[in-house]
């Protein structure tokens, strides 16, 4: 099918742990066990599960940072793990990643320009002028200023850093962005800004997201389809509307029941937000990237 961007076919990954004694067989951990899914262009697939469920292993396999023990990852018609190193490096322009911790994922000694334009330099050998131009475009798209390119990461707040990380991912004009807990480290109000930005970017550039999160509400908001992972296996899969309303698998039910704030006084339904009297009589103003934190 032409509109399928990413296909995972019965992916498994086994890690060998260090031997416990000299003569013992090294213990093995099955991090992922026969996981398969299809992701269509311009859609978002959410992966939920707890620590150790295999979410991040799945992300590393899709990003071709590790080889699966068995199974295939087909991205845009190419079997990623069957490519030559050279072809793989070229293919990497098509899929980029955003990590959880915007404090750890940006090099503190590099200016934003260097961080954001590095993928261009590596992949296309673009000229300096071209690099700066492209970096300016994406930094603008994520709601920062071009003058911010000459600053260092410590000059930005957590939410702004995550915008920079997203800009770095966007700069190669990827078809797929793998986002591993992109808003978990952010404060509630900043989290909302970044989630809105990610959705705006999808509308604007048609990016496809593989969205990994432990926060069911975030996945419900952003994703067209959800996979629930437990111990490396898919236990439930489907449309978030159905999956979160009528969870079939006991593990999904347990995850949902654990979400805090569902019992009265229910944070989710408390008072209907009445129109908020801001200057122009609109409800509480909703911010796109243009109204982003400055």
């Amino acid at each position: 099918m032409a509109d399928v961007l990413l296909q995972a076919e019965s992916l498994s990954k086994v890690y060998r742990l260090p031997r416990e004694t000299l003569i013992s067989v090294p213990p093995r951990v099955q991090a992922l066990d026969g996981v398969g899914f299809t992701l269509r262009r311009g859609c978002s697939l959410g992966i939920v599960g707890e620590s150790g469920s295999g979410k991040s292993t799945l992300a590393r396999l899709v990003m071709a940072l590790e080889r699966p023990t068995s199974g295939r990852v087909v991205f845009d018609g190419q079997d990623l793990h069957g490519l030559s190193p050279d072809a793989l490096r070229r293919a990497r322009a098509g899929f980029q990643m955003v990590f959880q911790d915007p404090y750890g994922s940006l090099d503190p000694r590099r200016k934003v320009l260097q961080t954001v334009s590095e993928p261009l330099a590596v992949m296309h050998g673009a000229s300096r002028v071209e690099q700066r131009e492209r970096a300016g475009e994406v930094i603008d798209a994520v709601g920062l200023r071009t003058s911010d390119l000459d600053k260092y990461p410590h000059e930005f707040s957590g939410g702004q850093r995550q915008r920079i990380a997203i800009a770095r991912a966007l700069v190669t004009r990827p078809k797929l962005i793998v986002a591993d807990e992109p808003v978990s480290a952010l404060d509630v109000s900043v989290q909302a800004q970044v989630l809105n930005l990610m959705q705006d970017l999808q509308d604007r550039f048609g990016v496809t997201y593989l969205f990994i999160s432990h926060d069911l509400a975030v996945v419900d908001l952003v994703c067209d389809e959800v996979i629930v992972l437990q111990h490396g296996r898919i236990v439930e899969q489907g449309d978030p509307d159905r999956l979160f309303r009528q969870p079939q698998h006991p593990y999904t039910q347990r995850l949902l029941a654990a979400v805090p704030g569902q019992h009265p006084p229910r944070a989710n339904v408390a008072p209907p937000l009445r129109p908020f009297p801001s200057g122009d009589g609109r409800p509480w103003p909703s911010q796109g990237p243009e109204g982003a934190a400055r």
Partner: protein
Amino acid sequence: MPGLEGTADTRAMPARTAPRCRHRHGPRAAGANPISSAGHPSRHRAHRLSLLEVRDLRVTLQTARGPADALRGVSFTLDRGDTLGLIGESGCGKSITALALMGLLPEGAQVAGSIRFGGRELNGLPESELCTLRGNRIGMVFQEPMTALNPLHTVGRQIAEPLRLHKGLTRTAARAEALRLLERVQLPQAAQRLDAYPHQLSGGQRQRVVIAIALACGPDLLIADEPTTALDVTIQREVLDLIAELVREDGMGLLLISHDLGVMADCVQRMLVMYGGTVVESGPTAAVFARLAHPYTRGLFAARPRLGLARGTRLSTIPGRVPELADLPAGCPFAERCPLVVDDCRRAPPPPAPVAADHEARCLRWREVA
């Protein structure tokens, strides 16, 4: 010591304030809440000391950019058996409040105002006396159990330490008590786990150990600073249930710090919403959720992703960003981001306005918010 006697008195009283409901039934209705906020001690309240009374607490930190007012006049009371939540985003002062209570503020911090614990003033108390309270009368649970525990010592030894130190228990007695505590925090196979090291436990199990240490000496006050933020949702639920159960059984006072509105709704009877070193709204949890009387509380609430929102919904956001402590404005700290701001907001910090009995919001225009 007079302070401890005062505490003992309060302890000996019948469990008048012990929560009658499990936290999952939600906080008590507004009228039933025995804590009254500042100000109007009725005649018979005057005879009774609150477990913890914080009055006009101000903390100034020394930063690279000069002195920063991290707390600008925080007041609250907490009784035994009651649960109080502090909520806010990074840099709002919620953790600084907890550190100030325990006398653990960073070097060079200046503290003004009063912290009375069991009738005894903690502000200005020498370190040696604070040491007799911390881990003894005041238990603490922090966010990251891996850093709170010493990786080189066994779990049993770390639980026994406060018992040996404060209660003077022998090694054997302390070990036996440590085992009882591990069973109490429902750590599976407690007897074997006594000799385990922290790295051999999962995150949830480690947090249970930290809770066991906090409870070892039967404290009057438990301070939990984001106790479940580093944990998975299902584990978070178990740990919160455990804390609620222990607080109910022992009738301690609980000060729970969290950035999660859902956790607040589930776990505390009363909450303080903090912003820019100030309590912007305070009241019984149910009343605060029902009214959201401060524009910041309202913004925080609206920004939260909730299950059941339609795919692609844009969340409401609060424009701008949290002000830096070093450049907090003279007036309302939220003024720069508030859609309702008027000139008066920038002149002086707004006084607390009585939204309802026992429910206050520091907003000049609170009537228009709700």
